[in-house]
């Protein structure tokens, strides 16, 4: 060995190391698998049964935000490129349409303000609590759950903007879902079409109270336990009933599109089409009801007082 130049000796030891590294110590791999496996299963159980891990999840979600934003880039860019290539004439006609729509909506709002005032006055006469306008926050979609079985989306507003778990989410057409988990910058929204989601609704024509359950298909909701003699028709509008205290009263949820009376079954089979464009809306509204707004200053004043 002494006769060999130092470079060769180095190569020999390198090769020895290389050969050593060819054979992994299988026993440590086994121990590691068992260790990490048990750790993961403990995490799964704790996460499923409690909310101790929500803080950790929120922290990790902040780290994961760049991935979500990067994944959303192509669709965002596609929209922008589409806009870039639309002609001047297209843009002008679009602006014209939007102006007309704005005037129409303004006229409607004026009427609405008067009606709301009148409604509150009448409620005052009846001695019941006044209905206030709900405040909303506009958010943008930045991600969709890749699993087709899960109807969840990710929006770009989080606990920093005051979003809370259970907050109702709307789009311009109707109720979309509710917030189920939060991080600093983003939050995850469960859509009303998810099979694990139900909304208390009422038929706006007959005030019949029902529950609309998600089916796992974006354009269909199922109304459960509808009696065969119930006053419900195809074309009826379903609005949120406010029972369950999660969703505010009176937002459109869907329109009944099929009623089947099967003599072999105890209840009628009724389905509805959601009013919200669940798979198409990019901009959504987060609703702060007056109760939530009232709660925030109350908490802070309590904190100051002590």
């Amino acid at each position, binding site marked *: 060995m002494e006769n060999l130049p130092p470079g060769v000796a180095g190569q020999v030891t390198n090769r020895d190391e290389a050969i050593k590294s060819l054979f*992994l110590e299988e026993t440590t791999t086994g121990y590691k698998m068992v260790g990490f496996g048990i750790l*993961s299963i403990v995490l799964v159980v704790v*996460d*499923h049964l409690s909310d101790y891990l929500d803080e950790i999840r929120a922290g990790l979600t902040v780290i994961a935000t760049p*991935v979500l934003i990067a994944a*959303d880039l*192509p669709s965002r860019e596609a929209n922008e490129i589409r806009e870039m290539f639309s002609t001047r004439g297209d843009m002008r006609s679009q602006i014209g349409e939007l102006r007309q729509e704005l005037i129409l909506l303004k006229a409607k709002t004026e009427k609405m303000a008067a009606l709301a005032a009148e409604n509150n006055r009448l409620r005052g006469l009846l001695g019941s609590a006044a209905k206030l306008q709900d405040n909303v926050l506009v958010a943008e979609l930045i*991600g969709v759950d890749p699993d087709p*079985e899960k109807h969840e989306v990710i929006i770009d507003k989080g606990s920093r903007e005051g979003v809370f778990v259970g907050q109702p989410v709307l789009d311009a057409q109707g109720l979309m879902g509710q917030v189920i988990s939060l991080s600093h910058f983003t939050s995850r929204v469960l859509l009303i079409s998810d099979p694990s989601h139900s909304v208390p609704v009422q038929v706006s024509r007959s005030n019949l109270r029902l529950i609309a359950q998600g089916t796992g298909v974006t354009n269909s909701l199922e109304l459960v336990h509808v009696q065969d003699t119930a006053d419900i028709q195809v074309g009826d509008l379903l609005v949120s009933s406010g029972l369950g205290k999660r969703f505010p009263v009176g937002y459109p949820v869907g329109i009944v599109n099929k009623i089947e009376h099967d003599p072999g079954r105890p209840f009628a089979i009724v389905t509805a089409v959601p009013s919200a464009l669940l798979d198409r809306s990019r901009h959504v509204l987060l609703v702060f009801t007056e109760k939530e707004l009232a709660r925030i200053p109350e908490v802070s004043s309590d904190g100051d007082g002590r």
Partner: protein
Amino acid sequence: MATVADSPSNGTWVIALTFFVAMILAVMPMPEFAPVVLGYLRPEWVVLVLIYWIIALPQRVGIAVAWSSGLFVDVLLGSLLGQHAVAYVVVAYVASSLYQRLRMFSVWQQSMIVFATIGLNQLINFWIESIAGLTDWNIWYLLTSVMSAFLWPWIFLMLRYLRRRFHVS
């Protein structure tokens, strides 16, 4: 030359980048006009990348990397924390006990193993979700492993090119 090859951080950024891209592909939204079935055709990008690096560099990428990437995927997908982590750990164990044989296999034989391993990954995820009462069995889940096995040769060639180009060892 020897010192460059020996430095343990050689090309860590390449490995990290491939995982980053795989995670982006894993959560990339489908176009709105795409039919729902397309959603099931999405391969398990992160597992494919994981299997490749375990076969290529078993002394650097192993159970620990599998666990942390699985936890990260759990956060990205909003699944139960640890659910993908445990599945990835099992996949990593299978891959790292077979890596010497896998290196000898042709790329299509490797595809078969990838099919079985990703099927196992899907099964573990499904078990956990069904015990937690979050999902129902759906035959379409198997499409994921079919698609992953089908894409494996290209992923393998691409990652091998990257590894050789940037001297990751």
